[in-house]
């Protein structure tokens, strides 16, 4: 909006609105999507794409997938709030975060196959940078629990050589940055009840039902 400080030129201001409106009109559909794709490729080529992400549909709702050049970094349920998840990634890993689905092609395909009961183990490079210490140790061991099987928090604590760290195993499962792919859903309470889950207990029981039906 032009500011005529003396206010003498009202007709000019009216005409400016017409021209200014044309200058401010959004660009035509499709152009920005094409340019975004070009930016994704250039960022990847120039080594600037620290974190690529996409979202995919799943039987458990929209999943966010994020990956660094090292591997899959994050799988997030919608209940985790994808905007907040991306904020946290920006803070902890790098602010150079771009929606760039092509890096997630393999992960998206394997997760689709898993939900279609055509895949039992994931063959993906993982980046566990979002967890550290004991939590990361537990998360590294979780894939040892086979498809369709379950363990108790206590058994997992024993398997990582810290039999008294049952509560810490619970925390490690609850903060698993890679649910579904790192199978924290296969860890239950000693009495067989579900225990907590990052995607909610319905998601946890849905995954267990899916694996039980297939095995």
């Amino acid at each position, binding site marked *: 909006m032009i500011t005529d400080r003396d206010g003498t030129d009202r007709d000019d201001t009216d005409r400016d609105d*017409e*021209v200014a409106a044309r200058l401010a009109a959004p*660009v035509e559909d499709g152009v920005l999507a094409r340019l975004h794709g070009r930016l994704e490729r250039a960022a990847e080529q120039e080594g600037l794409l620290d974190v690529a992400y996409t979202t995919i549909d799943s039987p458990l709702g929209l999943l966010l997938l994020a990956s660094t050049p090292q591997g899959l970094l994050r799988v997030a349920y919608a209940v985790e709030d994808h905007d907040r998840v991306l904020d946290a990634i*920006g803070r902890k890993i790098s*602010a150079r975060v771009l929606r760039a689905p092509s890096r997630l092609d393999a992960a998206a395909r394997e997760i689709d196959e898993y939900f279609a009961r055509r895949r039992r183990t994931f063959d993906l490079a993982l980046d566990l940078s979002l967890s550290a210490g004991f939590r990361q140790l537990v998360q590294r061991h979780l894939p040892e629990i086979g498809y369709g099987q379950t363990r108790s928090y206590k058994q997992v604590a024993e398997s990582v050589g810290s039999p008294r760290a049952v509560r810490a195993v619970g925390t490690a499962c609850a903060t698993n940055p890679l649910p579904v792919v790192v199978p924290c859903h296969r860890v239950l309470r000693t009495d067989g009840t579900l225990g907590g889950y990052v995607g909610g207990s319905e998601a946890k029981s849905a995954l267990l039902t899916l694996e039980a039906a297939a095995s």
Partner: protein
Amino acid sequence: MKQPFERIVEQHADQVLRVCRAVLGVQDADDAWSETFIAAMRAYPGLPPDANVEAWLVTIAHRKAVDATRAARRRPQPVGQLPEQTASAGSGGPFASAGSSAGSDASACAESGLEADLLWEHVRALPDKQRQAVAYHYVAGLPYAEIAEILGGSADAARRASADGIKALRKFYPDAMTKGAS
């Protein structure tokens, strides 16, 4: 807190493209947009969290546009593409001083009926300072003080350049003229 870069792209992609179109024309805007955002992504981790992102992006786009314009001036102009005046441009209008192939681009746009593209060619035909001031104020929405930072000179000079540029653009919109005069 610094936002994930994707959000910067979401929020500013459209505006930066229009700035590039205003300064360079539709043909060269895509390249300038791409170079602007890749440069921005490279520099993003070092950007202070309280920075004015819009002004920062426009400053980068401005530099890319200046580079592109210099490169274009070094390229020989094709003989077959001498500027032609279109009916809407009018003889002796801003295109006469454009010095580039803006005139022929404008006639090509007019022939293909792309009215929006034609607007950008009109803007592109303005003298440098007017074109930039119009782009950064009317398209990017920056205050004149910020524009003075980018272009050098005073805020008043930026305001005058912008007003002159808008005045020249008005000639291409007689409907607006009629409405304004009534």
